């Protein structure tokens, strides 16, 4: 079963290659300062990518991530302005993320509507709800945000990890434990691998589906909280089209959209590859920002072709033996 680590291995190789190549042109990229910033500035994308990785492994998709991030920020800022305690507010929005995700999972399983369409309506609903609350950016400043934004864990060499990066790394560990050391995690892989056999083997379909989407909702809500605190504001347009980046990060991280194959750990590297692309282009200074999109598209293409190749070598190996 070593083969299943192949996509992850490919991801890490691409990350290292990009990192070294970027570092050779711009030696500052090797500093821990830049590395810390990579983690800090992209913590919310990686968090969202972790959540969507579970969904994709189960053979589904979640398009409501970006809107969830925007909605969570707007709610946080407005409840803060209304005098709620920030910690209570964070618990409320995280609970909302779980409940909304569970609702989507229920619709998908009980009403047999495709995940694509259910979460698409989630995308519209949550974005529309944020627009209804307010249209402008609302400042989010309170004791908790200023405390959180002043957390720094020093790294050797002048770099540091911010609070957001630390939360992201902690949640990554939690996700790895859920995916690989719980019955729920095994069920997720089983459903994505072959739904019919999973049902025949007694995997509780409805419960697992609801939990998968609830988990994704939870991770996007955390991403929204981190994003809102980093920017100290709630903005209804925040996280626009971020679901695409999260899905791209997940695919670059070695997760197959056909389901059943993937590693939560890969989402970290997928997100970091996206981050590295934009960092290198920003360091270059002369390249247009449009190249970020094109480079991302090209890497996606490369990865998908590699995955195809791995899969076909899998199946041909299966046939001969």
């Amino acid at each position, binding site marked *: 079963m070593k083969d299943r680590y192949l996509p992850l291995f490919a991801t890490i190789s691409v990350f290292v290659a990009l990192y070294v190549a970027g570092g050779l042109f711009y030696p500052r990229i090797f500093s821990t300062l830049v590395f810390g910033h990579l983690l800090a500035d992209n913590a919310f994308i990686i968090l969202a990518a972790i959540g969507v990785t579970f969904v994709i492994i189960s053979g589904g998709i979640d398009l409501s991530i970006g809107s969830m991030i925007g909605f969570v920020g707007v709610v946080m800022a407005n409840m803060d302005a209304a005098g709620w305690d920030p910690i209570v507010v964070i618990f409320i929005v995280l609970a909302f993320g779980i409940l909304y995700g569970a609702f989507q999972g229920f619709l998908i399983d009980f009403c*047999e509507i495709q995940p694509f369409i259910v979460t698409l309506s989630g995308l519209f609903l949550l974005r529309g*709800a944020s627009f209804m609350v307010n249209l402008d950016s609302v400042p989010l400043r309170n004791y908790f945000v200023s405390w959180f934004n002043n957390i720094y864990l020093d790294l050797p060499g002048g770099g540091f990890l911010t609070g957001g990066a630390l939360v992201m790394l902690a949640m990554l560990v939690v996700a790895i434990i859920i995916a690989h050391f719980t019955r729920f995690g095994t069920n997720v892989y089983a459903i994505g691998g072959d739904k019919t056999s999973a049902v025949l083997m007694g995997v509780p379909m409805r419960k697992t589906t609801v939990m998968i989407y609830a988990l994704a909702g939870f991770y996007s809500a955390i991403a929204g909280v981190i994003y809102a605190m980093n920017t100290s504001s709630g903005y209804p347009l925040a996280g626009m089209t971020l679901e695409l980046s999260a899905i791209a990060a997940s695919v670059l991280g070695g997760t197959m959209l056909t389901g059943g194959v993937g590693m939560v750990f890969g989402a970290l590297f997928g997100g970091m590859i996206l981050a590295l692309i934009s960092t290198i282009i920003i360091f270059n200074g002369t390249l247009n920002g449009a190249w970020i*999109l094109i480079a991302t598209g090209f890497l996606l293409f490369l990865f998908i072709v590699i995955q195809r190749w791995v899969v076909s070598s899998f199946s041909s190996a299966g046939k001969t033996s």
Partner: protein
Amino acid sequence: MNTQDLSSSETKSSFAPTLRAMMAHRAVWPLVVLAIILIVNAIVVPSFFSLSINNGRLFGPIVDVFYRGTAPALIAIGMAVVIGTKGIDLSVGSIVAVVGAVIAWRIKAGDPHFVILWLALFVGIACGAWNGFLVAVLDIQPIIATLILMVAGRGIGLLINLIDGGTDPSFTSELLQGLSVGSIGPIPTRLILFAAIFLFLWFLLRRTALGLFVESVGGNPEAAQIAGIPSRLIKFSAYVISGFCTGWAAIILTADVHTSDPVSVALFSELDAILAVVIGGGSLMGGRIYLGMTILGALVIQTMVTSILMSGWPPEYNLIIKAVLVLIILLLQSNNFRGAVMSLFGRRA
């Protein structure tokens, strides 16, 4: 004994209430929703049904629905064909961006506009062919294959905008704007254009075997392959058709605003197109193409958008109402949900 049981259950099902059969028909729920929207409109904004002729052109909210709905409906019928093969095309918005950028670039470069029209269509078709290549030849899952162009396309559009030094990409073109915002008699040209493309597609799918092939490839790929249908070629052509329709939509949308705006043009249009197909009763599982129903789906979406604008509500309500409506239509189409509601009523009665 067994056979008797079977036959009796069969006769039972053949006597199933016609109401139930009607409710299960795919055209009913979208029509009901459209009717509800129109009735609500008639009460809230009676002027919704007003028609007038200004400067020899037909005006009124209903005309506006058709007028603004043309480009989304064009994209949606292309999407319907792709979804018929059990595929999906996420890249349509980006194709609009690329085609728009090419149009602006070539007009600045001074090409004859008639040539640009065909070049724009060619670019749309080429984008579709790229998607088709990934799906049909490399066997990549449609949702990812088209995700590539979806992500990269707007970047490519921005780069094309930069070719002549990033100057203002706005333009004027009698030919293109004639096709988009012009009118023949009282009827907007784009509606005639749409009718022509729709008829062309309808003949292609329903008067040749292509439609049957597409549906069989989407319905059961293995059986289609065994029956000797060249499934790769069929899948490839579905994406080319989608690129063709999207190319026309891009010409209309780009000429409409006289400029190329790769970042925000046709944003979320892939989602609207997929919604139109689904509201029209098409299943994402493939195997069915309902061109007419897809147009009905696009009309439902556009009527709703126009109604919200007319009603004086803030346009922010647009997204949320769209989401709720989609959920309602989908819930009504779900057997499990209908069963649950009926058993609820049954218990109370």
